[in-house]
């Protein structure tokens, strides 16, 4: 009986993997001054990112290749809001960044990217 259940689990897992239709899911948390993905390595293909802004200010998530080419981006995500972002990733290295430059009450500029809201993720074959 146990062998039948184990074989069934393996078959289901194999079927899921072999189909390729299902996107890899991951979450990305944005807060000052961090972009925190749930994993720093992803598999090739579509990745569904659940982006949540847990910080005090509005943020965006812009996904670029290592060479700077923009893959996709979210719209403005207000504090406490979440958006889903689906991106098709080839093997390589990517950056998750926030590209907001805001002027503070004292007149100074706060570049979210320069402040540290950028991180590297790797997509493997």
């Amino acid at each position: 009986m146990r062998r039948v259940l184990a074989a069934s689990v393996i078959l289901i897992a194999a079927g899921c993997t072999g189909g390729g239709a299902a996107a890899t899911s991951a979450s990305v948390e944005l807060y000052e001054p961090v972009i925190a993905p749930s994993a720093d390595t992803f598999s090739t293909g579509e990745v569904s990112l659940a982006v949540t802004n847990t910080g005090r200010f509005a943020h965006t998530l812009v996904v670029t290749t290592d060479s700077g080419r923009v893959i996709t981006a979210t719209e403005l995500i207000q504090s406490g809001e979440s958006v889903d972002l689906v991106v098709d990733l080839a093997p390589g290295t990517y950056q998750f960044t926030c590209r907001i430059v805001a002027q503070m009450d004292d007149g100074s500029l706060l570049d979210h990217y320069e402040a540290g809201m950028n991180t590297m993720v790797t997509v493997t074959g």
Partner: protein
Amino acid sequence: MAQDFAGKGRSRRRLRWGRHRQPPPLKHLALPADLPSVENHTAASSTRRPSRWWVAVALACVFIAVVALGTAFAVQRAADKPVGEGELFLEDASTAARSISDAMSRGGDPDDVVRHVRNDLTIEGVSIVAADGAIEASSSATLSGSLLENQFLLGGAERGRFVALAAPITRPLFVDGVVEWEQGTVLYEVLAPLDDVAGSVLLHYDVAELLERRARDSGVQTETLLLIAFGALMALLAGLLLLGWARTARRYAQMEHESDLLRQHSSELAQSNQQLSEARRAAERALHLAEEKNRIRAEFVLMINHELRTPLTSVVTGAELMSAEDLSAEQRSVITDAMVSDGRRLQEMIGQMLAVARIENRGLAYELEEISATSVCDAVTSALPWTVSVHAAELNEHRDAFVLTDQTALVHVITSLANNARTHGADDVRIGCTDHLEFEPMHEVGVRPDNAIFFTVADDGPGIAPDFLPRVFEKFEKDSFSPGTGLGLYMARMMVEAVEGSLSVYTSAEGTTFAIAVPLAGAELVTEPVG
């Protein structure tokens, strides 16, 4: 008869010294002819003293290389630093706002103004928006944006703040009536308040293009490569300079070492040559001394042959004549007197030789006593029987001074000198005593005391030959034609030296004066002559 014997055999034969071989000349050691001199050794070489300028230039190159590499590192690090676009946007926005404000204040057309600004900044689009988000002018007549839908930008417009945001546009954007960007294209939209004009300027950047350009710029910088190449070149140059300097310094040090060895070798050779020269001079002195001893010995043999054999022959001949029966009594008396005279002469000579030998073997040691000069002169007078009968001795002033001497030795010397004067042809011999000499001695032996009394023996003889004068007190030295053994004055000298005095002589054609200086014993001199 004795005079005849004395005149015989006085040949002036000279010994030939030629059979004495001279020592072979010593060859001085010398450097080999092909050995370069110390001075030429360095000069002949192309190696020169390494200049410190090489090191200075090399260090300067090292410094430049370090600075270049440090600058390259700083440039690359700055390029690699992940930076945002805030400063770029702020600069562009400020330029755009200033240009628009200036143009608007001069009454320019807003649409033309924003087109010029777009062209100047080479960006995708420029718009002027009101505080409520309404687009009042745009570089493209059909340009519309996502401004109204974006609360972040709207808030900036309302509050007159600078804000920038990269986000996908929600609908296509047109430039000059053509879709420039499809929906979903990520654009950077930058909003900056205008100067002196109500509203804000909105700049549109293509995020993809912007980031790609940034990514390209963040690679290895050309300036970095140039600086690294320059630094490496400087380092290479410094290395070559230091290497050349080190090689030159090493070769120069080696040359100096070789020069030192040559100098040392040359010095050793010079020292050896000097030692050889000194050895040669010592050998020559020893040879000369040996030759002199040989000469003295030979002359001594001649003298013995003559001085001893002559009176001995006279005695033997006289004895043979005495055996003849036809001699008269007068003739026998003459022969007997001659035999006695020559026999005594033999006795005297043998006695002198034995005395000299004894003195040389055992030395002389006298007990010096305070003796009155008068007693010395009296003793001399009594010891010279002929002075009474032939010449009276002159004992003049200072007769009662006391001297520190041995009376027997002193009297013996004075009488010997007086007898010697008679022997050498003087008719008048005067003996005196004085505290100063009337003449400057021509030759003196021994050590003259500081406070001395002089006993003088002066004669009117023919004088002493000048070339013989320096040797007059030496052993076996005598004038070739003078009688005697050559020991009398030598003995006198030894005895005077033994009583810590000096013996000097002054001679001329009118006569000779010997002076014996002995130490004064401390008694006061009486300047008045004693009669």
